[in-house]
């Protein structure tokens, strides 16, 4: 019963403020997440454009968009209340806190339960909760439809996510993402276990769902057929829209990093030196771009599923992750 026994949990309270390894980790992780997120978004767009024989946006378009939006005036509907005004910054804050839960290139010694996989999930859930409320706030039909569908989808994907997490906790004997990654680094035997291959497929489906991509949603448009995520943030504008878009991109990077660093932990290190960090960043960039290309191709080769056909897609993910548990229980 050691695995939830997190001895560092309360070091904070004993007057031992964040140790330096954690401080460095926070700075590196936050910097990388913020810098890489718009890039990954654009790369996926670029891949999809190539698949459609278009040239696609320039590679830095993600950054240009965010800066453009930040400079623009913010417009609030007269119907909207405080919820509309606090959601974008709160969303960003929650995602930044969540960014400390998934190590990108360096794993510090765990502190204060940061990295708890359920807390990570529920921080994202709180962001989504607020976003769905903001969707209803302006009183437009688009926003309401987006909120309703988003909450439905997030509800039916939830059992899949929890079973994946339970299976991960089962395999790695810990419920902390940081410890999972450091276990994955030290014992590469996990890499080729059938359980992890099954889990990575399920986690990929979760990634697609949570980042509102084809076949669940379509990030390019907010038209009637796909009105989920984009419809929900339709009423946002100016710097609020920039915050929403940036936090959505951060969420995607975090989920990608979760998938990459647990299943392909190359380049992540537990020691903090200049060279390990640089190598780590380069390797993460390679892994990330690779995954972006896979996502882009995956999106281009599928059609959007009907909303009420989605439960069957999630059932596939559920069965795969449940199969892992069966394998582990009887194996």
């Amino acid at each position, binding site marked *: 019963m050691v695995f939830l026994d997190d001895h560092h949990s309360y070091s904070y309270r004993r007057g031992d403020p964040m140790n330096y390894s954690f401080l460095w980790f926070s700075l590196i992780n936050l910097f990388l997440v913020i810098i890489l997120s718009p890039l990954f978004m654009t790369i996926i767009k670029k891949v999809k454009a190539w698949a459609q024989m278009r040239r696609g946006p320039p590679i830095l378009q993600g950054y240009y968009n965010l800066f453009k939006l930040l400079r623009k005036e913010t417009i609030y509907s007269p119907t909207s209340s405080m919820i509309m005004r606090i959601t974008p910054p709160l969303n960003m*804050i929650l995602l930044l806190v969540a960014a400390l839960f998934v190590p990108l290139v360096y794993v510090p010694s765990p502190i204060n339960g*940061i990295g708890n996989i359920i807390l990570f999930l529920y921080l994202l859930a709180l962001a989504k909760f607020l976003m769905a409320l903001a969707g209803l706030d302006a009183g437009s039909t688009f926003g309401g439809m987006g909120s309703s569908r988003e909450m439905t989808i997030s509800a039916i994907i939830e059992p899949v996510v929890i079973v994946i997490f339970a299976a991960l906790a089962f395999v790695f004997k810990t419920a902390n993402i940081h410890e999972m990654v450091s276990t994955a680094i030290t014992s590469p035997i996990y890499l080729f276990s059938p359980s992890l291959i099954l889990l990575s497929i399920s986690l990929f489906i979760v990634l697609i769902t949570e980042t509102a991509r084809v076949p669940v949603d379509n990030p390019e448009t907010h038209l009637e057929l796909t009105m989920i995520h984009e419809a929900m943030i339709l009423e946002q504008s100016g710097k609020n829209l920039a915050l929403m878009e940036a936090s959505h991109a951060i969420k995607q990077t975090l989920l990608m990093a979760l998938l990459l660093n647990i299943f392909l932990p190359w380049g992540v290190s537990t020691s903090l030196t200049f060279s390990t960090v640089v190598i780590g960043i380069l390797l993460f960039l390679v892994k990330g771009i690779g995954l972006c290309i896979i996502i882009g191709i995956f999106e281009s080769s599928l059609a959007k599923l009907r909303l009420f056909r989605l439960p069957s897609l999630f059932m596939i993910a559920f069965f795969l992750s449940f199969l892992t548990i069966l394998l582990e229980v009887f194996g």
Partner: protein
Amino acid sequence: MLRLLGFALGSFVLAFVLPLAFIRKRNSLLSRCSLLLTLLGSILSSIAASIILWKGNSFSYTAYSYSPAISFSFLIDQLAAFFILIISVVTIAVTIYSWDYVKHVTAHNKKNFLTALLSLFVLSMLLIIAAKNMIPFLFFWELMAILSYFLVMFDYEQKTTAKAGIFYFVMTILSTVLVMTGFFLIYHNTGIFEFTSFNGASPVVSTAFILLLIGFGIKAGIVPFHKWLPYAHAAAPSPISALMSGVMIKVAIYGFLRVVLFVFPTPLLWWGIVVLLVGTISALLGVIYALKEHDIKRLLAYHSIENIGIIFIAIGLYLLFQSTGLFTLAQISLAAALFHTLNHALFKSLLFLAAGSVINSTETRNIEEMGGLMKRMPATAWLFLIGAISISALPPFNGFVSELMIFQTFFQSTALSFPVIKIVLFLCLALFALTSALAAACFVKAFGIIFLAQPRSQHAKEAKEAKLPMIIGESILALFCLGLGLFSAQIFSRIGAKINVSFGLPNLLFVGILMIAFAFILFVVLRIVASRKTKVSETWGCGAISQQSTMEYTASGFSEPIVTIFSPIYHPQKINQRFFFDSANTQFKEGLVEIHLLKFFEEYLYLPVARGVEKVSSIIARTQNQVDIDPYLLWSFLTIITLIVIAGVIL
């Protein structure tokens, strides 16, 4: 301690007697006095309970002793003190809230009646928990049942109240019968009415356990005995709904825990599985039924069923781990059950009180007729939002922590050595996760439809903010919700040090500090980088000229995708009729669309049983209805003979 509790008892009794003695008095002085006395009593009892919890020594008192086996005595140990604290804190908030609420009761005698019953109702619950043995327990259990029935019937003028009352009455009596039978089985084997460990023959022990599970389960509102909750909670006045949902059903949890911990200290494995499955089903069906509900109070009542289910899941895990010898995990599950009980009491009362303010302002319970209240009643809206986030188990509020503890024990259930049970546990885990996500969806619906967008009725448009006492009452509960969430790691590390268990909770206070720090950085960065220009203007609506409240998303619209996905449970029937001006059906005159959802338990369980009872009683009724007295004498004679024969055989 005795003096403290005596004062508490005195003020509760005085709060009951005073308004009843002068029930015809035509001012609100008496009801105010009574509320103050109830407030005083609950503050005193909360202090006493805190002292007992802190020091860890229990308090006992014998009021009347007929024989060593039969006595009317009380014992407040730490378990009891914990529940007394829950009741007292919620009562404090409810009485402060009621200060203004009673104004809305127009008839003065009813006003006095309400405050009097309120105080005695709280007192009866406190005394159930303080009961040392089964006799005072059952006595006050019945008192609570009767008083709560009166409170449900408070608005007796309304037609729906009668139905709610009869439903509640039947269920509550059934609960008492089962609990009493269970107690007598225990008495039959141990020879005393104490809550001591019961080592009879296995089938007898199991029968007693199942009887008590169902008996307390009915009162707690587990599926399939849950139907009274949405009726009764909707019918009662809002402060009473808050007490019933926040506290009364917890008394049933207390009763169940008392027998589980003290009477059955060595549980069997299958009990755990039964309780776990019952809990999972209650949690899932509770939230699924809540999603389709438009009546705010019934929606909250269904969420009580969900949360009681979650508490039963934790108790089920406790039984499972206890029976397999994994005592550390058992203790964590038990702590999760207790903590969720406390949390649910706090946020559910908060939600019921806030809903009460909304109902007062809009004069409707239908959320479709609300909307736009965030601007009209901002304080109530924020308090409701805190309750909604807590009940949706989102960090950093208290609901999250107890659900996190349950998730973590589920994750650690791999330590069990039975493969099949592990698989059952993982299935329950998946359903539990679904429950918690659906609860979030339901509260997006509830908050969004009630408070956001534009008002959808005249009443909602003219809604006024609730009065200050109401807001203070709610704020107390909201502060507890936030505080217990933020300081959870600190609290549990202290408790864990005492009982040598590591709970492994993440430090939410640290997360909170991080959030504030990031908020500050974000503010500064945006200040430098971003444009500060803002404008309030109509946003583009695809060519709509102006935005109307009729275009908004409604509660039915919001839950429609979920209803469609879970259609095997709801069995929605859509009726679509169109009428035309001409026979060729070209000119549309009017249309009618109705969606009916199946009330499964009512149609397939309750009504058949009720019809059966009716049939039997009509047969029995035939033997009466006669003018002459002879048949009655015959019946009485036969009854007495039978009773004597039975008594002779048994004794």
